[in-house]
C-alpha cells in the first residue's frame, strides 16, 4: 500500500470516529433546522468519501506498480520514513516539558528543554550546553514573567521557596 492508500484508511477511521462522537451531542430546546449535529454529520460523511477515494486510488496505484514489477519503494520515501522516529522524538521533549512544568516550574523546565533539544540535535557535550540552557531560561523568564507579566508556573516542588 502506498502513501495515498494509508492516508485514505486513516481518514476513513477518523471519519468513523468523528461520526460516532456526534452521537454524544445533546439536543437543545433552541434547536434550528440544521441543528448542532447537522454540520458535523455532513463533515464526517464528506471525509469518509474523500478517504475512500484516496484509499482506492492508493490501492490501484500500488497494484499498477506491482504489475509493472516495481515493488521497491523509492530511496526518498525510505529516507523520509527513517526520519519519522527522530521527528517524534524531538516532539517528545515538548511533551516532557508539559509534564514537568507544573512540578519543577518554568525556569527549570525551559533550561531542561533547551539543553535536551540541543543535545538531541547534535550539540557537542561541552560546558556550552548548560550555559546556553541557563542563559536561555533566564532570558525567557525575564521576557515572559518579568516583562510580559505572564503567570508561568513556579512549580509545586518550589512553591514554598518563592
Amino acid at each position, binding site marked *: 500500500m502506498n*502513501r495515498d492508500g494509508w492516508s485514505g484508511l486513516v481518514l476513513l477511521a477518523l471519519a468513523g470516529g468523528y461520526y460516532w462522537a456526534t452521537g454524544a451531542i445533546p439536543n437543545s430546546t433552541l434547536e434550528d433546522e440544521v*441543528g448542532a449535529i447537522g454540520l458535523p454529520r455532513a463533515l464526517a460523511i464528506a471525509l469518509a468519501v474523500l478517504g475512500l477515494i484516496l484509499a482506492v486510488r492508493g490501492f490501484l496505484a500500488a497494484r499498477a506498480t506491482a504489475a509493472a514489477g516495481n515493488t521497491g519503494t523509492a530511496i526518498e520515501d525510505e529516507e523520509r520514513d527513517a526520519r519519522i522516529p527522530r521527528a517524534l522524538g524531538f516532539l517528545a521533549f*515538548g511533551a516532557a516539558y508539559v509534564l514537568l512544568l507544573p512540578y519543577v516550574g518554568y525556569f527549570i523546565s525551559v533550561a531542561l528543554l533547551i539543553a535536551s*533539544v540541543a543535545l538531541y540535535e547534535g550539540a557537542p557535550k561541552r560546558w556550552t550546553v548548560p550555559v*546556553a540552557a541557563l542563559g536561555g531560561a533566564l532570558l525567557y523568564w525575564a521576557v515572559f514573567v518579568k516583562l510580559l507579566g505572564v503567570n508561568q508556573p513556579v512549580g509545586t516542588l518550589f512553591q514554598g521557596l518563592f
Partner: protein
Amino acid sequence: MATFWDIIHLLTGTPLIFVAIMGLVWGILGGALPGISASITMALVLPFTYTMDPAMAIALLACVYIGAEYGGSIPAILIRTPGTNSCAATVIDGYELNRQGRAGEALGISLMSGVVGSLFGLAMLVLLTEPLSWLALAFTPPSYFGLGILGLSVIASMTGGSLVRGLAAAVIGLMIATVGTDPISGVTRFTFDVPDLLNGVEPVLVMVGLFALTELMSQSGSTDLTQLKESVRIRLPSLSMMNKLKRSQTIGCVLGLFEGLTPGGGGSIAAFMSYNEARRWSKTPEKFGKGSEEGVAAPETANNTVASTALIPLLSFGIPSSNSTAVLLGGLLMHGLLPGPRLFEQNPQVIDSLYVGSFVAIIAQIGVGILLLPAAVWLVNRPRPYRAGFIFALILSGIYTLNNSGFDLGIALALGVVGYFMRLCKFPFLPMILGVVLGHMVESSYRRSLVLSDGDMMVFLQDPICVGLLLAAAGFVIYSLTREVLDARKAKLKEAHG
C-alpha cells in the same frame, strides 16, 4: 479614512512606532533564518499579541510580514538558501552577485526594491480596500455565508496538485472548528467533558502547531548549511542604479499587485513571474543568471508588493490568499475582529493602525535593515541544535501566554504531530487553516439565515450579494479545477514525449 490628526495621534499617542519597529526587527530576524518562513515568523509572534491592544497587535503582525519578506533575501543572497519561499527567485542572481564579491550591493538592491514594492503595495492597499468596505452596510447573514464559501473556495487553488487531499485537509479544519459550544443552540460538541474545550480550539494553536512545530520536527537531524560571512555590509544603490532598476521594479509592482489580489497567488509566484518578465523586457537579458542587478530587484519588488496587496482580499472580504495572511486572519479572530466588511465599520482604528504602522515599518526598513544585518548574520550562524532548542522553548512559552494553560500546549503538540504526518503525505496546510478560521462563520451565518427565513433555502438566492459571492466562488473553483486538469495533461504529454 483617517484624517491627518488621527495619524498624528496614532504616531504620538500610541506605541505604534515602537510596535512597528519591533515587528520589523522580529520579521527580519525570523525571515533570515532558513526554514522559518514569513508565516512561521508571524505564527511565532501571534501568542504574544493576545494581551495587546487589537489595533497594535494587527499592526505588529503586518510589520512582521513586511520585515520577513526582506529578511528572507539575506540568506538567499549570502548562502544560496532562501529564508522564505518567496525569496527563492532572488537566489539566482543574488548569490551570483555574492560570488562576484558584490553581496553588499545585492543586499542593498534587495532592501531598496523591497521598500519600493512595499510602498506601492501599501498605496494600493489603502486605495482599493477602502471602496470595498462600502459594501459593509448591505451585508446580511446570507451574504456572510456567501463570503465564507468564497473564502473556502480558495482551497481549490491551494491543493498542491491533489484536490482530494486539499479537500480532506479542509474538512479536518472544519471538524476542528466544530469543537466547543454550538453557535446557535449553545450545546457543547466534542468537548468530552473537558472544560478547556468549551471555547473550542483556538486557530492560533492550529497555526503554531502546523507551521512552526511541524517545521522544527522536519528539520530535526538535518545538518547546518554554509556559514554566513560576518564581514558583509549593505551598500545602498546609487540614484543612477535605481534609475536603471526602474523597469524591473515596475514589473515587480504590477505583478505583485496582480498576484496579491489573486487568491492562491502569493509572493513566490509573483517573484518568479517578475524575474521572467524582467529578463524578457531587460536591455541586458544575457546578464540574468550571471549576477544581474535587475534579477534581484524584480523578484524582491514583487514579493514585497504582495506582502501588502495580499491584505486587500483579506481585509475587504475576509479571504486569506496565503499562509501569512491566514495567520493575520487568525490574529484578527483572536481579538474578536470579524474579518471582512464589518472591520471597517466597527473597528476603523485597527485599519488605520495597520496602514500607518506598515508605512512606518517600510520607511524604517532602510535604517533597520542596515543596522540589523550583523545581528541577522550572527543569528543565522548560531549552531542549529541551539537554535532549535531556543525556538522550541519560545513556541511553548508563547502558547502558554494565551490562557496560562498546559492543555493548550498539549493541543499544539498534538497538532504538530498531525501536521508532520500531513506533510509527509503531502496534505496542504492552508485548506485546514481556512477550515478552522472560516468554519464558525460559514456554519453560524448559514444557520442564522435559515432561522430568519423559517428554513426556506431560497433566502440565499434572494440576497444579491450572496448570489454574487457564490457565483464568484463557483467560478473560482471551476477555473482552478480546469487549470489543474490542464496542467496534469500537459505534464503527461511532456512525460510521454520524454
